[in-house]
């Protein structure tokens, strides 16, 4: 039973690591501020989430797992809030995003 768990946690950790790297690479490759934020969000969501999952699987039902969950919850709330604040501040400071075409008008009401 524990072997399966270990395997699962290894894969989660590895995947998490991979997505973190992807995010990092994205940070450098993306042309402007807003696109870079997207890259970072990959790392901060999947990268972090999977790694936390991997660690939680490792520690089983103990105090550490709970704390890891708390870290997860923390990121769940704060990471998007920070990203939003960053983007909003950037926009209000006048940083223009690179746009491919006209804005999509919302077709709905």
């Amino acid at each position, binding site marked *: 039973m524990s072997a399966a768990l270990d395997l699962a946690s290894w894969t989660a950790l590895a995947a998490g690591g991979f997505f973190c790297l992807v995010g990092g*690479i994205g940070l450098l490759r993306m042309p402007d501020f807003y696109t870079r934020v997207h890259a970072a969000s990959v790392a901060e969501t999947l990268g972090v989430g999977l790694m936390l999952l991997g660690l939680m699987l490792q520690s089983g039902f103990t105090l550490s797992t709970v704390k890891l969950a708390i870290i997860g919850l923390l990121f769940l709330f704060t990471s998007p809030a920070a990203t939003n604040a960053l983007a909003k501040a950037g926009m209000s400071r006048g940083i223009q995003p690179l746009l491919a075409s006209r804005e*999509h008008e919302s077709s709905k009401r």
Partner: protein
Amino acid sequence: MLRTVSAVAVMFVFWIVLSGYFTPFLLASGLASSVAVVWLARRMGMVDAEGHPIGLVPRTVFYWPWLAKEIAKSAWDVTKVILSPRLPIRPALVRFRPTQRTEVGLATHANSITLTPGTITIDAGHDEFLVHALTSASAEGVVSGDMDARVTRFERGA
């Protein structure tokens, strides 16, 4: 008043989850701390529907898994974009009108958009959201209003 009691309860649970040591002294101090924190939160005007949306907690059980799936899917898409040599991005700004009424609902919606890679909420208001999309696909995703409906259901429990 009920909200205050529930707030204290949540705080105390958080304390216990953190603590790991259940000596009488620590439990007592945990309770005392919870009461103190709630008292201070009340002074800050935080113990209200927005600050302590206890009602929404049960429905998170349904909403969060869906959100996780969405995040995984869009994260994979963005990963493909980042890793492809051509960097096929078509950034676009999308404005649309959200259907949520409460601020917590709006905030959840905004965060959900930001959390799903490919889209970030730049400005969130009662009558309009401004979203920056990385690709045209993610732009359509937003416009489709699929997430908007789910969040509203999460918000009102209809």
